[in-house]
């Protein structure tokens, strides 16, 4: 209580440590609040992707054969490669946050650049995959083609979700890449220190969340029909 009073009396003239916003009493409270806010935002994101997962689960339960057949047309190597890339980027991101906690701005910058690079590799692979789908007439809609008419509807629905889910995921990656650019610049300017690293930590939370979404997308989209690969259907 006493320290609180002192802070208020000091008011605007209180010597603010660098990075402290006026509405907070101290950096600890700020870190605590921003981190909790980020987690709440991620809870919102869970529900955002959750709507897609619910739709996917429903249609897959109704058209399992079409989903499996369509899934087998995805390139597991590229999907797996991207999984490794993205988890790798989570590692570099975590190391970046660690550097921020230690106040090593140069290393923050370096790790974030590595993260950005891996993120761009991921998006590049996505472009390759999307263009292959376009070439193979697997974009849902009027031009969608599937050899087996009996499975065409399920296969088309699979690709509807493939594009919606990976597209929404890729959009989050693009936003994340933009944020990374900003934070790379901030780190370059030496903004962070051992008591002020909240923004980098929150960037990390966002990036890891996007990684987690992919961790679920990979088996749900790429692996689901693998066991029946080449088995001639059923």
């Amino acid at each position, binding site marked *: 209580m006493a320290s609180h009073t002192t802070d208020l009396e000091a008011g605007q003239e209180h010597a603010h440590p660098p990075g402290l916003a006026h509405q907070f009493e101290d950096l600890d409270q700020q870190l605590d609040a921003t981190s909790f806010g980020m*987690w709440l935002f991620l809870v919102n994101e869970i*529900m955002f992707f959750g709507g897609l997962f619910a739709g996917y689960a429903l249609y897959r339960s109704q058209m399992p054969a079409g989903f499996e057949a369509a899934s087998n047309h995805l390139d597991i190597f590229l999907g797996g490669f991207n999984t490794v890339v993205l988890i790798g980027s*989570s590692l570099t991101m975590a190391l970046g946050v660690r550097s921020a906690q230690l106040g090593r701005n140069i290393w923050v910058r370096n790790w974030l650049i590595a993260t950005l690079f891996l993120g761009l590799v991921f998006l590049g692979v996505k472009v390759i995959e999307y263009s292959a789908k376009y070439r193979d007439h697997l974009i849902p809609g009027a031009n969608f083609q599937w050899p087996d008419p009996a499975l065409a509807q399920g296969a088309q629905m699979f690709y509807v979700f493939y594009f919606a889910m990976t597209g929404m995921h890729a959009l989050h990656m693009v936003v994340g890449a933009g944020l990374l650019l900003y934070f790379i610049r901030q780190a370059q300017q030496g903004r962070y220190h051992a008591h002020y690293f909240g923004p980098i930590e929150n960037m990390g939370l966002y990036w890891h969340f996007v990684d987690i979404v992919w*961790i679920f997308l990979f088996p*749900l989209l790429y692996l689901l029909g693998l066991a029946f690969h080449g088995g001639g259907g059923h």
Partner: protein
Amino acid sequence: MARQSHAPAHPVTPVGMYIGVFLTLMVLTLVTVVAAKFDLGALNTPIALGIAGTKATVVVLFFMELRHARLLTKLAAVVGIAWLAILLIFLFSDYGSRSWIPTSPTWVSPLFK
């Protein structure tokens, strides 16, 4: 005190642990691909989701440092998953029971004659 000031001032995680986490995730990725190649019938999807859930938990606990977070933050994470479960459970409670045709009650009120 409402404002228990000090934020989770957890120790900085050693690099080795992060690398260990990364390797664990790589192994789990490999396991999930291999497991998917075997036709285990109805078990394929639960196994795939179980491994994905494990990976996600590892990421949340270690990369996102939830293990050092406040109880409140942990609660927020759990609530997020619980609400997704509500959506799924109630959604499937409809589709799963569509084919259940109710029996008529044995006693019919004279009002319905």
